[in-house]
Every structure is written in C-alpha cells, then in structure tokens.
C-alpha cells in the first residue's frame, strides 16, 4: 500500500534519512521504533511531503507521491496524526472534526462523523467544548478522530502515546487495533516500543536515519539487541 524505496531526506546540508526502504501492506499494522533523533518523525513527514525526499521513491497505492505537494498527498486517502496532537485548541470538538472532513461531501461527512463518535464516545460528550480545554488523552482521541474524518485507507500515527497516562495509552492502542479490524492500514511511529511491537504485525528499527532491522513484531520483541536498546533489557 505504502512503499518507500531508498529514500534520502535532507534538511539543508544535513542528511536525516539514508536509503530508507519500508513497505506497509494493506491491512497491516507496521510500527517504526527508534531512539530520539533517529529520524522517525522525519520519515513520517517525508511521506507527507514536508520535507520532500531528495531521492528515492515513495509509492502510495502504486502511485508516486514523492514530488507532490503536502496538500495533494493528504487528499489521496492517507491521513496523519501529527506528533504532539496539534488539535485546533480554540475550535470546538465539532469544528475540529469538521475540519478533518474538509474535502468530503455532506453525506460522507455525516456518516463518518457517526462512525468516529462511535469509536470515541468521549468526543460525543465533549462535542461543543473547545479542543484546548480537554485533557491530553481526549485531545489525542480528537486528533485521531479528526484524521479519521477524511475516511483514510492508510493512517499514519506519530507517537500517539506521547505524554499520556498508561491507562489512556492502553485505550489508544485498543482503538488502533480496532481500526485495523475495520480495514484501515496503520503505520505507527512510537517510542513506546513495547506497546507498539505487541500490536504490530511487522516492525522496523531506525537508527541514525538508517533502517537497521526489520522483522515481525513478535520477533523484534524477543530480539536481544532490540530488547537491550529499546525495551529495557
């Protein structure tokens, strides 16, 4: 579904990604783990076209999206939950969700709204409240909900567990699994490697902008080097 072939990304003179090749198949949860500064977020943003990859190829459903502008890529059927939630804090939950479906027609919007509110009953309770007045977990739900409003086939999640309480993280991961059952393909970037690898079908390990390892989630969980580096021995 999503395929990166030998992607290099630069920030000015500095190379952040070196020959990264990653594949995400339909219906999978694929996770990308790595330490701070390994290039996880850069990789995700490269898929979104900001910054654009300086060489290599990025294919989404067989179509090259490497040269496309961000706004075009984001209308192709993939959605991203950016790092740090980034909800519109001055807008209400309703308006936030509406922004997510900016390019859908009214029927699609209403159907998807029901669906998202079903997934996150909490958002229904807070429907007319300003986004910024909610708790971190609720904001994360809103951020995921907003991304889902465009009815994406592929969902990119950048550190959804960032700064959340363990019980909330649990809930978020349950929802991610539910989304997979509904047929949404998921590409998950996480620092919380333990949790991420447990639900992932496959995983990639990124180090200093290079993919150093890739295997099934289970195999990575039990892999010695991975355990040592990311799972606390």
């Amino acid at each position, binding site marked *: 579904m999503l395929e990166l072939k030998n992607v290099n990304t630069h920030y000015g003179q500095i190379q952040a990604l070196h020959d990264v090749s990653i594949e995400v198949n339909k219906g999978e949860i694929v996770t990308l783990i790595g330490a701070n500064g390994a290039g996880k977020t850069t990789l995700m943003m490269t898929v*979104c076209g900001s910054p654009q990859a300086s060489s290599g190829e990025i294919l989404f459903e067989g179509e090259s999206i490497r040269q496309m502008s*961000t706004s075009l890529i984001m209308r192709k059927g993939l*959605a991203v939950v950016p790092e740090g939630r980034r*909800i*519109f804090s*001055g807008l209400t939950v309703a*308006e936030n969700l509406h*922004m997510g479906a900016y390019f859908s027609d009214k029927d699609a919007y209403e159907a998807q709204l029901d669906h998202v509110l079903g997934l996150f009953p909490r958002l229904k309770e807070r429907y007319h409240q*300003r986004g910024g007045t909610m708790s971190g977990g609720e904001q994360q739900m809103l951020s995921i909900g907003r991304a889902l409003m*465009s009815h994406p086939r592929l969902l990119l999640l950048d550190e959804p567990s960032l700064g959340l309480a363990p019980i909330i993280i649990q809930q978020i991961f349950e929802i991610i699994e539910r989304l997979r059952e509904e047929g949404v393909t998921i590409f998950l970037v996480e620092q919380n490697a333990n949790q991420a690898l447990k639900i992932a079908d496959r995983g990639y390990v990124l180090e200093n902008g290079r993919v150093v390892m890739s295997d099934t989630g289970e195999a990575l969980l039990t892999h010695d080097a991975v355990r040592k580096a990311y799972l606390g021995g």
Partner: protein
Amino acid sequence: MRGSLYNAIFAAGITLVLACLMLGVRLGAEGTTLAVTGAGADRWGWILAGVGVVFFGQLFANQVDALFGRIPKPNLSALKPQGSSWNTLKPWLLSALVVGLLVWPFMVSRGAVDLATLTLIYIMLGLGLNIVVGLAGLLDLGYVAFYAVGAYTYALLSEYFGFSFWMCLPIAALLAATFGFILGFPVLRLRGDYLAIVTLGFGEMIRILLNNWTSITGGPNGISGIEKPTLFGLEFSRRASEGNQTFHEFFGIDYSSGHKVIFLYLIAVLLVIIVIYLINRLMRMPIGRAWEALREDEIACRSLGLNRTVIKLSAFTLGASTAGFAGCFFAARQGFISPESFIFIESAIILAIVVLGGMGSQIGVILAAIVMTILPELAREFSDYRMLMFGLLMVVMMRWRPEGLVPMKRPHLELK
C-alpha cells in the same frame, strides 16, 4: 516593597521627562523666529500632580490591581436573552436596528450624519481587516494601501473616463483584490513579524507611488472634484450637469445640501450591510473555519490536506477587496483625495479597531469602530491632548480587557 519603590521612582522619572517635553515647553512663533517658552506655574502644578499620581500608582500597583480586579467586568453576553427567546427576538431587533439607522439621519444635525458616515467607512475597513488579522491571523500593517487603491480607482476612472460611482464600486473592489493577490502571492510564505514588515513596506510603496506619479495622480495635490454618487442618475447638486436631472427638481422639493449628506450616509449603511452579510456568510462557510484553523495551527491544517497558500490568499484578497469597497466610497464622499489620506497611521487605527473590538468578532469590531471614530471627535475640545487621551484610553483598555470589547464567542460547556 523595595522593588516597587524603585519601579515607582523609575516610572515617575519617565513621566516627568515625557511631561516636561510634551507639556512643559512650547514652541511658538515670535516674529520671524521660533521661540521656546516654558509653561506657567499652574501647568507645572498639574505636571507635578501627574508625576505624583504615577509614583503612588506604581508604589501601590498591587493594591490598585486588586481594587480594579474587584470591579465587576461588564458581562455583555449576559445581557443577551438566552435560547429560543433570542431566536424569535433576533430578526425583530435587527430590523429595528436597520430602520433606526435609516430614519435617524433625518432627525439630527448634518455634522452628526457626516460623522456617522465616517464611522461606517471605518466599520467597513475594520470588518475587512478583521478577516485578515482576526480570523486568518496574518498581521497586515499596510492595509491602508488597498483602501488607497480603491479610492484612486474611482477618482481616476471618474476623472479620465467619466465612470460613475456605481460602476466603479465593483471595479475598485476587484482591483484592490487583485493588488491583494499580487502582494499576497510572494509574501504569504512569511510569518508573523516578517509579514508585518513586508506589508508595512507595501503600504508605504503605494502611498509614495501615488505621491510621485504626478502626471496621473496629481501627486501631493491629489485629485479634486470627484463626482458624487447619483441616485439612478439623479444628482444631488444645486444645478444638474448637462443631460442630467437633480434630485430636488425631480421630486419637486427645495434644494438642501443636507440631502446629499444623508444620501451618502444611506449608501454607507447599504454598503456596510452588504459587507456584514457577505463576511458573515463566508465565516459560516468551510473557508471561514479554515481561516481560523490556519491561525490556530498551520501544521495541523497541512496534515488535513488544506492548502495554506490558497487559504491565506483568499483571506488576504477578500480583506483587500473590502478595503477597496470602502476606499471607493471614501473618494466619493470626500470629493477630494490625496496621498495624505492614506498614511501609516490609518493602518494603525484600523488595526487598533480590530484589536480593541476583539479579534475575529464582528460585533466587537463594529463597536470599536464607533468608539474609535466618535471618541476623538468628542474629545475635540481637548485639542492638543486629544491623541494623548486616545493613547491613554487604549492602554487602559488593553490592561482591563485585553481580549477586546466583545471577544469572539465560541460555544462552550459550563461546569456546574
């Protein structure tokens, strides 16, 4: 206590220096030379009293703040009846307001109507800039440029090609929008302060261009004798120009110069209503929400597939076209325009209207425009100190109600 004592001495010192320069000495003409004269004893008394007030005010700043905090803030939204009664009342109130606006000029003096017309121009400008600054969050310090473009469009088209006011109105809006588009395209990549500086420069560019393009714009002499608007071809002058009829002849009433003033006022009311309606519509459309979303978080907007250039450009262009609209009417009302009317201070006043009114709120902007145009008029008898008082008012306002007169309202849940 020690900190506030230093603070108080410092503030009092600054007040003394400023007051001495602004109030204590006066530059006057004495024969052919200029002479500096000191102030009289009574004025020095006032200055010292003022310094004393600042000193003690700063010394007891905390207590004063606590005192001010206890003054209940006007809760304007509480005055509004709740729920369904508001919905039934709203159309009645609105129509009463419109009828009031239409009938009112026939009952008051000519000067008051004239002032009201000016206020309406500022309302238009405020509403236009509100889209750019209040909703889209793009700090535009050169807004007056688009106002100038609108005004000169009408003045030049009328002078050289004899176009009528009504024909020029859409042309002026369109041309100002084009200028907004042309300016917006390269500069909207910039953010915040950088954008502010570029727009500031653009505002000056337009003014200097108008000032120096003497062959066409008349330079600093401006353009005079701009034709007044007509009512379906009826003129409001004492004698009709060739092939036309005047308003008073047509209706068989005595000529009164007041007719023209009232007519201009009514046009202004009409234009303001159109502008309010259009902007209100736009704000409810997805694009209006996109402006707000862009102001809140640009990265999130991009992650949702929104094209930020298009959104910013639309806000910029629409704001500019509103200014063009207002400018065209301004030229028609004044009958004379020169680059002097489009200096930076105008941009600053319009921006102050938007900020004072509460960013993004239409009612707030309208109220602020009224306050900002009428207050300086009321304070006319304070002559030289008018602007000083004006500044003081704004400082107090920002201290007391920093979110503006009527902040933009969003529905929210109350915790019980």
